[in-house]
């Protein structure tokens, strides 16, 4: 990838929140970025990496990304670190202590939260991290604010010698709005080697001193919040006031244009004096926030009476309709659909290499501890090939714990499944543990050569960096062997027979082992193989056994004979009540269904 982003201002543009964050960082002279992909944060670092003169990397996980950012900041750089909300859990250890050391240069951590769990395993409200780790947090409400707030965040980091959070939510990250970019400021090189052990060696003796500094800094920030121009009062109707921040501000404005507002640009620490003043100016106050009553609890602790979670939901994303209904008690008039609509959940793509693997696994009668990635989708009908998913990396530790707890009962019945990106993110240490503490499980690494779920990001196994440079890919087999696993085997998940045989052998043999199920993601262009011919079902042979249907592959559909015109009904078995068909425009000829068909009814299209 070459630097391709326009560097100059060049007029108004539509930008997503994520693009605007990257733009703002670039404009204010940030040239260092690290992160780990995760919806809805991913495009920030992808976009930032395209600007000229920038260093940006995908680190193997969020903890490493933050530590990389801390190192850069200690060397005097301005460092941008990005992750999704749950990524902050992974990075929490360095996070809580970098709050003590301060940053020397500048360090801004973007946490992209996901109210409504559009693509996440939980709905945690990361504003709590700001309070918990004593780190100030800004929250923009739209793309233009995102571009501006990231700059303010960097200034604050330098001025107060503190890491700063910028919080986004899915609706900000993935909505587009008009932005007016500015020219980038000239970049000054302020990096140098600076030794200051008292500040950066956090042993108790030093940390106790820094602990006091943190409280002083919090007081300075509280004072700063009172006059911070992005904490803004709009006094209109004095009867009703709404205290809110971020996207919720716009939802409320769309529904109630004439109420008064206290819009908080800084969500932690709160401007207590300003809140008291607002409470004096308006009669009735609503606190509007998605997820936790984060403001509400703090404001109620001031002795100010407000209405919050008694009318607004605790869960899910809001929209103008939800806000309007909660406040006014009236539902907008709308016409609903009178029939049941079959749901359309995301599914593994046609030709996805995960499908064959999970078909085999589901027939082996094992407990499959799963992990996070596209392959998690195989828990659904009809594959039902995965039985747990907690967080990235959990599969291996859980398989180990389960095998230890079950003892003989679990012998040959425990499989842990993890993707390649996820394995390198947080699967290495649990695998070391499995080997060292003599666990008994088969670990399958679904190596599709990329981080597919979040849109094909590089990871240390792919051989390329985020900015497109070639680098040395990790040798998975050698790594796993070095961790103490004696049996490491590689299979092609398009080959059902071999995949099944190898998994059975490994399950039969006591002790830990690893099977690498290797084939590139079908959507991954760099590793694309020559197109294969689509397949079709020969109606003169299909016996309606539904074996191929059990794959849940999008092009394969079941047709009941009762719904077909008589001339199309071809009965090839006694009790046959329907047949399978394949949509050739969707099929990419992976042959997995063909291997399952016992009567040879699935053939190449002519």
């Amino acid at each position, binding site marked *: 990838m070459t630097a391709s982003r326009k560097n100059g201002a060049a007029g108004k543009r539509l930008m997503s929140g994520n693009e605007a964050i990257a733009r703002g960082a670039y404009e204010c002279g940030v040239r260092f970025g690290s992160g780990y992909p995760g919806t809805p944060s991913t495009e920030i670092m992808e976009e930032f990496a395209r600007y000229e003169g920038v260093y940006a990397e995908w680190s193997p996980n969020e903890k490493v990304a933050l530590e990389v950012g801390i190192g850069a900041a200690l060397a005097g750089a301005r460092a941008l670190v990005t992750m999704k909300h749950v990524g902050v859990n992974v990075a929490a250890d360095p996070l809580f202590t970098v709050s003590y050391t301060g940053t020397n240069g500048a360090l801004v951590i973007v946490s992209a939260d996901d109210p409504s769990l559009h693509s996440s395993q939980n709905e945690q409200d990361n504003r709590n991290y700001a309070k918990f780790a004593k780190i100030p947090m800004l929250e923009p409400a739209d793309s233009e604010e995102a571009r501006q707030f990231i700059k303010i965040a960097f200034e604050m980091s330098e001025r107060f010698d503190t890491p700063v959070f910028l919080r986004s939510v899915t609706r900000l990250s993935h909505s587009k*709005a*008009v932005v007016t970019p500015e020219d980038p400021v000239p970049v000054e090189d302020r990096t140098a080697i600076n030794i200051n052990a008292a500040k950066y060696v956090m042993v108790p003796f030093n940390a106790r001193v820094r602990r006091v500094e943190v409280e002083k800094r919090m007081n300075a920030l509280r004072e700063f919040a009172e006059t911070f121009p992005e904490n803004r009062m709009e006094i209109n109707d004095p009867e009703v006031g709404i205290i809110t921040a971020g996207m919720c501000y716009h*939802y409320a404005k769309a529904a109630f244009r004439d109420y008064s507002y206290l819009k908080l640009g800084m969500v932690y620490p709160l401007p207590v004096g300003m809140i008291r003043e607002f409470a004096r100016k308006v009669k009735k106050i609503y606190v509007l926030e998605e997820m936790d009553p984060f403001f509400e609890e703090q404001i109620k602790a001031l002795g100010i009476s407000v209405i919050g979670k008694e009318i607004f939901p605790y869960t899910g994303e809001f929209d103008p309709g939800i806000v309007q209904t909660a406040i006014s008690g009236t539902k907008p008039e*709308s*016409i609903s659909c009178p029939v049941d609509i079959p749901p359309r959940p*995301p599914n593994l*793509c046609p030709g996805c290499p995960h499908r064959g693997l999970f078909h085999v696994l589901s027939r082996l009668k094992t407990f499959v501890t799963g992990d996070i990635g596209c392959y998690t989708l195989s828990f659904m009908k009809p594959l039902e090939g995965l039985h747990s998913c907690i967080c990235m990396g959990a599969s291996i530790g859980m398989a180990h714990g389960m095998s230890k707890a079950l003892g003989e009962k679990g012998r040959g019945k425990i499989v842990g499944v993890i993707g390649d990106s996820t394995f390198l993110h947080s699967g290495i240490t649990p695998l070391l543990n499995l080997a060292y503490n003599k666990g008994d499980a088969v670990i399958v690494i679904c190596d599709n050569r990329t981080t597919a779920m979040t849109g094909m990001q590089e990871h240390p196994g792919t051989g390329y960096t985020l900015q497109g440079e070639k680098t040395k890919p990790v040798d998975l087999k050698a790594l796993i062997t070095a961790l103490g696993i004696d049996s490491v085997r590689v299979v092609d998940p398009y080959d059902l027979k071999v995949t099944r045989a190898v998994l059975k052998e490994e399950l039969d043999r006591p002790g830990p082992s690893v099977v690498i199920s290797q084939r590139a993601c079908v959507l991954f262009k760099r590793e694309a193989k020559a197109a294969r011919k689509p397949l079709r079902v020969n109606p003169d042979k299909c016996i309606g056994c539904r074996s191929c249907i059990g794959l849940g592959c999008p092009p394969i559909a079941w047709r009941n004979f009762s719904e077909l015109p008589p001339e199309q009904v071809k009965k090839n078995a006694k009790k046959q009540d329907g047949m399978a068909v394949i949509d050739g425009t969707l099929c990419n000829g992976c042959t997995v269904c063909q291997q399952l068909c016992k009567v040879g009814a699935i053939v190449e299209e002519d």
Partner: protein
Amino acid sequence: MKSEVKSILMAGVGGQGVLRASDILCQVMMDSGLDVKKSEVHGMAQRGGCVTSHVRYGQKVHSPLAKKGDVEILLAFEKLETLRYLDYLKPGGIVIINDEEMNPPSVNLGAAAYPETVVPIVRERFPSVIVVNAPELADRAGNRRAVNTVLLGVLSKYLKIEEQQWEKGIRDSFPPKTVDANIKAFHLGRGI
């Protein structure tokens, strides 16, 4: 004068080009001097799930999300998806339906039926329903994937935006190889 903010909702299935279409629409609106915001959820969308994009425009837009009962035009890229978002439409709103069926997983498995009466259900409830065979028009334009530009063409009939703006928007959004087919697809949609 406070002018009204209006909403368009596009709905389809991952891979149909919904997001590209809404990007073009927003660009064209911005170039015509309007404030515009759009919102979408992607991430898992590539995997054959539902994709929606809310587009809101006017003098000053706050929310990038429309509320239920507030959408002027629903542009459904897939027939069944029309029903899923019907409650977003204003009573009397316009519905544009691409007459293409893509089976959800439960239909493929034989566990559920694809509703047969999508169009009549919608017609019974809304006065202006336009059904278009976009894949056929896209084929005629020389690119089967141009379904999204055909549908933009149909949509364009209901918006007061200059034709050149649309053409520019399309030209700027596709690789040179496919621009001509997409322009043609747009006009075939606009001409129905």
